[in-house]
Structure formats: structure tokens, C-alpha cells
């Protein structure tokens, strides 16, 4: 307990130190706000523009959430196909690897042409870049299930549904949640890039608009709010993980080998 408190306070101290150093540096070096505003100036801008920032947070949060959700559902289904069908896995794997390497952000302008201006292209980009880690990790998790455990279930006469839901799925949860944590941060990137190129709403739009109008304080205000949204999404995934995998937490609490 005392260990936990000292850890959390040290973690907070790093943040505080970072912002104090930033504040002092901007002050001492007389950096103009248009180049780099100080944390207090950014904070003031957040307060001043609060309603405006909130209005644009909604669409961004929606794009992140919707993109992630599509990626999770499609990723899961395709991962099941890959894990259980040799044919599907052999046929799709090279494509998936190639698609994984491709910088999907570069497709954003293309999606503007395909889907027009608005909510569709950013959801598509968010979903697309969140998709690959989910597919690959989930498939790996499902494939890593102990073969003898499945044999054990078969010896009991378990049907495939029982094997999937009682064994394979819980077995894969650590893999799935690891990929969700990566995917949710990627979905934030995807949604914002989508808003950079193809939107007149959302924090991505606010940031790029502030950039053009040289309102660097507002730009940073947007970035800060965006980070906060990203952290909230990430925490939501962590919370879901904790609720679904209490046993894993119990394992991590046991004394580790030195």
C-alpha cells in the first residue's frame, strides 16, 4: 500500500516536473506564445474556449469509439476465421502483413474522395488502423490455446461452442486486451488524421484550423483535450480488462521471481 502511494506520487511528480520545466523555459527564454505557449497560457485558452472545445470533442470521441468498435468486431471475426481455418489463414496472411506495413494514414486523402467530407472517412481511417493489431493478436491468442486442453474438452464430449466459449475465448483474453490497448490509441490517431483532411468538426479540425490561424494556444488546448479523451478511452479498455480478467490480476499480485 505504502509502495503504491509512493509510486503514484512519483508518477505525478514526473508530470509536475515536466510542466514546471516547460513553464520556466518558456519564461526564461522569452519564447513567443505563437511558437510555444506556456502551460498556464494553454490552460487559460482551454478555459476560455471550453464550450467550443467541448462541442468539437463529441464528434472526435464518436469517431474514435465507432472506429474502434468496427475494428474490434471485424478484427475478431476475421481472427476467428484465421485461427480455425488453415485455408483462410494461408490465403489472408500475406495480405494482412502487407496491409499492416502500409502506412494507412497515407490513405486519408483518398478516403476524402471516396466517402466525402464528414464523419465517414474519419471512422474508416480510425477503424482501419485499429483493425490490424486486433486481428493479428486475437488470431495468435486463439492459436496459442493448449492443444491438450482442447483434447480434454473433446474427451468430455464438448461441442465446438463449449470449447470456444469455455476455453479458447478466455484463454485469448490477455492477447485480445493487449491488442485493444494498442488499437484504441491508434484509433485516436486515425480519427484526428481523418479530421485533419476531411472534416469541419472535431478536435482534429480545431487543431488544424488553429494552426492555420496561428492561434498556437488554441492548438495546444485542442491537443490537451484530445490527449485527455485518448487517456479516458484507454482507461475504459483497462477497466473492461480488469472486470473480465480478475484472475489475471490475481496472478500478477503473487510474488515475482527475483
Amino acid at each position, binding site marked *: 500500500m505504502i509502495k503504491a502511494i509512493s509510486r503514484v506520487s512519483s508518477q505525478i511528480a514526473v508530470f509536475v516536473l515536466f510542466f514546471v520545466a516547460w513553464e520556466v523555459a518558456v519564461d526564461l527564454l522569452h519564447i513567443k506564445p505563437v511558437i510555444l505557449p506556456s502551460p498556464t497560457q494553454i490552460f487559460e485558452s482551454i478555459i476560455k474556449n471550453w464550450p467550443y472545445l467541448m462541442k468539437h470533442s463529441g464528434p472526435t470521441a464518436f469517431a474514435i469509439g465507432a472506429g474502434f468498435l468496427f475494428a474490434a468486431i471485424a478484427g475478431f471475426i476475421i481472427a476467428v476465421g484465421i485461427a480455425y481455418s488453415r485455408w483462410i489463414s494461408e490465403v489472408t496472411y500475406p495480405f494482412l502483413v502487407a496491409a499492416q506495413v502500409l502506412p494507412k494514414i497515407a490513405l486519408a486523402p483518398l478516403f476524402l474522395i471516396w466517402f466525402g467530407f464528414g464523419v465517414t472517412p474519419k471512422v474508416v481511417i480510425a477503424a482501419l488502423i485499429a483493425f490490424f493489431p486486433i486481428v493479428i493478436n486475437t488470431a495468435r491468442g486463439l492459436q496459442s490455446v*493448449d492443444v*491438450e*486442453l482442447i*483434447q*480434454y*474438452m*473433446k*474427451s*468430455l*464430449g*464438448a461441442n465446438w461452442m*463449449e470449447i470456444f466459449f*469455455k*476455453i479458447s475465448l*478466455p484463454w485469448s483474453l490477455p492477447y485480445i486486451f493487449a491488442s485493444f490497448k494498442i488499437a484504441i490509441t491508434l484509433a485516436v490517431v486515425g480519427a484526428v488524421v481523418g479530421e485533419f483532411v476531411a472534416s469541419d468538426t472535431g478536435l482534429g479540425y480545431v487543431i488544424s484550423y488553429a494552426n492555420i490561424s496561428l492561434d498556437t494556444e488554441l492548438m495546444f488546448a485542442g491537443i490537451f483535450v484530445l490527449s485527455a479523451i485518448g487517456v479516458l478511452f484507454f482507461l475504459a479498455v483497462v477497466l473492461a480488462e480488469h472486470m473480465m*480478467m480478475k*484472475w*489475471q490480476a*490475481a*496472478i500478477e499480485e*503473487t510474488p515475482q521471481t527475483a
Partner: protein
Amino acid sequence: MTDVPNIKIDHLTVQYRSKGSIVTALQDVTVDIPRRSFVSVVGPSGCGKTTLLKVLSGVLKPTSGDVTFDDQKLGEARLSGRVGYVFQRPLLLPWRTALENVALTSEIARKQMSAETRLAEAKRWLGLAGLAGFENKLPHELSGGMQQRVSLCRALAFNPPILMMDEPFAALDEITRESMQEELLRLWQATESSVIFITHSISEAVLLSERIIIMTARPGKVEEVLDVPFPRPRGEELRASAPFNELVQYIRHKLRQSQLGLAGAA
């Protein structure tokens, strides 16, 4: 129990194929396992004992030969819910408590049972295995031998007519092992199920079984099938008696011969 079948194994051969190489685990194994008998399998490590159980439990397809349960071929026989298989490894689900792990089998093989009955039965078995108070522990909180006992309870808890046990007592201390042996014998006599029991302990095999299958080293063949004549209950006096030790020595001799590759020449 009426659904305990006679098991006939007829010219059974099992090969593992992996990346071009073929390992013959069992070759031309023919043996009978009469209903309600206690049959042990002994043989050197790697001779195919586990493979044999996997085929009998319907988990692994034989390369050639037949297994019949009464008159049904293995593929057609409805084995589900009839076989309680204790694997060589505990194979517990890490996310389930000891109690929930034990209840897994009846959850799948005894669907008509109510959840309360399942848990009560599971709890009773854990108690018999000396694990009272550990019901709500996760597998990683249990020692290796305790995990093995949970795995044993799991197979026994749904009262299967055929028990297949792959070195179930290997991880236990002498005293726990003896009490588990007694428990197993009591259960076998009460329910008259068939037990197929793999062990590396010759005296354990002699003490428990009616029939012992001695296997040769790879590829696994049946070296000899012998019936154990001693009456039950087989207690301390029997263990110390000359006929008991003669039989143990005889089996040891057979195993040593086969391991030295002398079986054919002798």
C-alpha cells in the same frame, strides 16, 4: 452402472506425422479391457501409453486398427460423458477456481444436473482429496500435487463409467498417494466402472489392478498381458508377501529386458 462397455483393441497402430518424419507410437496393439475391470498399463517412457489413452478416449484417430466399445466402433460409439480422463498434466483452467475446475466436467457431460448439485459434488470430491478450504483458490495458488488432485477430482466428480488415468498419482507424496489409491479402489468397487490406469510404479500396478498390460519400448507393442491373482482387499500383509514381490520382480525383469532391446531375443 449399465453402460460400462467391454473395450476391444484390435491391431491398433498409431503414427504421429510431423514435418516429414513419422513416429510410430503404437504398433499392432491387441488387447481386451473387460467391463468393470481395473487395468494398468506399464512401460518405459515414450512407449505410447498416453497415446493409447488418447485413442481410447476418442481424442486421437488411430492410423490403423480398430477399437470397439461393446459392438460399436470407436467413431460411432457415443463416448461423450462416459469417459473421465485424467491427463498426465493437470490441465486446469487458470481462470477458474479449484471448485469451478472440478465442476467443469459435469457442466459439460451432465447437463441435466443442477448447478448447485454440481458444485456440491465438486466440493465433496475436493474434501475427499484433502483439499477442503482450497475450493476458491486459483490453480496458480496450488502446489503441483494439489493441482494433480484437483484434476483427479474433476474426472471423478461426474461419475463416469470409464476412467482413464495417466499417471494420476505421480506428483503425490507416499501417504497422500496411498489414501488416493484407497479412495479410487473404493469408488471403483462401489460403482463398478472400468479403470484404465497408467503408472510407472510397478507395485502400484500390482496392488490396484486385475490386469496389467506390459508394453515394450518404441514402437510401443504389448509385451505381455497378465492377470493379477491376489484377492482383495490387498493390504500391508500382501505388500510384504513373497508372491507379491515375485510378481513385481517379474514385471521389472520384463521391462528391463524390453528396454535393453532383449525382448525379441529372449
